[in-house]
């Protein structure tokens, strides 16, 4: 087993590899984690994700721009690819599945991909429909996979209106599904007006909100089942 000191060193190395967008070091450190028998889960959350949180902060502070953000995400995935097969159990209290995509007419999927990454990291089952997704496809896929959550993204004011249609159609089919929207033109106001359950300013918020939503959904289900039994 690795000593506490070694663990700390490796976590720091993973974190810095992500912050410094250094794929090679991210891979190297992840391999070391496995070699010394450290917990992969811990390495992902206290190393890679901790680095990505700092990256989020740097991005907000406008010290990092889009290229840096993307290179950091690539470094995170380079490590994640090595560590993920060795994750024994990812437990955030909830597990869920999520359908995600950029709505029809919109090919901007950088933001969507980063949100997807956070779900991946957190151990969600992610059904990624990609970009420029026909509106009906979201509903079909939600029904097919019985997902708890649907995430819609749009980068343009012109394509954004497609999200409202998807929300209406989803609600008609399945009133309990949780819906989250995001993208540059979207705001909390719009989310509320259109009846979405959540609005994500960025990837970190998306994940936090998603976890809250799914746990509240699970609670609703449990209560309903308890009532039935009672």
């Amino acid at each position, binding site marked *: 087993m690795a000593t506490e000191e070694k663990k700390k060193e490796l976590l720091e190395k993973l974190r810095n590899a992500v912050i410094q967008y250094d794929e090679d070091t991210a891979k190297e450190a992840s391999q070391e984690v496995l070699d010394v028998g450290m917990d992969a889960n811990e390495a992902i959350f206290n190393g890679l994700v901790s680095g990505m949180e700092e990256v989020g902060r740097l991005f907000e502070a406008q010290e990092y721009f889009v290229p840096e953000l993307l290179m950091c*995400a690539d470094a995170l995935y380079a490590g994640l690819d090595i560590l993920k097969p060795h994750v024994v159990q990812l437990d955030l209290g909830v597990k869920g599945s999520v359908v995600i995509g950029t709505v029809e007419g919109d090919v901007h999927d950088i933001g969507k991909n980063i949100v997807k990454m956070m779900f991946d990291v957190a151990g969600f089952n992610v059904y990624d429909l990609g970009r420029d997704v026909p509106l009906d496809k979201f509903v079909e896929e939600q029904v097919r996979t019985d997902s708890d959550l649907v995430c819609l993204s749009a980068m343009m004011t012109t394509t954004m209106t497609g999200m409202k249609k998807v929300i209406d159609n989803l609600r008609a089919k399945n009133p309990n599904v949780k819906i989250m929207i995001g993208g540059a033109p979207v705001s909390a106001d719009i989310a509320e007006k259109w009846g979405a359950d959540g609005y994500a300013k960025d990837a970190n918020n998306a994940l936090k909100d998603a976890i809250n939503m799914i746990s509240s959904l699970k609670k609703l289900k449990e209560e309903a089942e308890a009532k039935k039994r009672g």
Partner: protein
Amino acid sequence: MNRTLRKELLGSGAAVVGVAWVRGALAQEIAHLERAVSIGVDRNLNEDTVRLLLALQKKVVGMLKKEGYRYLCIPPDSDRIRNTFVSKLYPLITHKMAATSAGLGWIGKNGLLINPDFGPRLSLATVLTDAPLQVDTPIERSLCGDCALCMKFCPSDAITGEEWSRHEPFPELIQMDKCASHKKKIKALHGKPNCGLCITICPYGRKIHREDQEQSFVRTG
């Protein structure tokens, strides 16, 4: 920094190096990167070309990172990489645009970068950066002149004979469907879609290769 950069790259296998001023030409996500380092290596029908270009890019990145500058690498085979986050940004600049802006050559009738010394026989990689490197003079128009060898020899008649200039940067030089269907035919015959006659025939830079061959002949003989 310019001089060390150039020296380092040319000493490590680059055939040509130039710096382009690309402000105003880039999308908002990368608009803060105002310069492009364009690196060309002699293609030489050698399979290690991509590997060499990647190694040269790494050298540039090492220097920029050490000095605290921002950068974005566009790898030589950028069109084939789709599975990374950063690959979303690759289509925002082309190697050829960076190269012509860096004074390395013009776009020939065959649609390829033509360098006065190496002709169309260069493979390219680009590094965008905000480092204040001294920029080279861009090339404004095609120097192909009346030469139309590539057009004449193209087995699929795909070359239209239009001329490129900086003011008219996207004329239809190549009828891509013709070129593609020809390569498909060759692939069915030989298993590989290699054609490249428009490269072989270009008189620019052919001399260098001939001298190389003569020299190696002398050496072995």
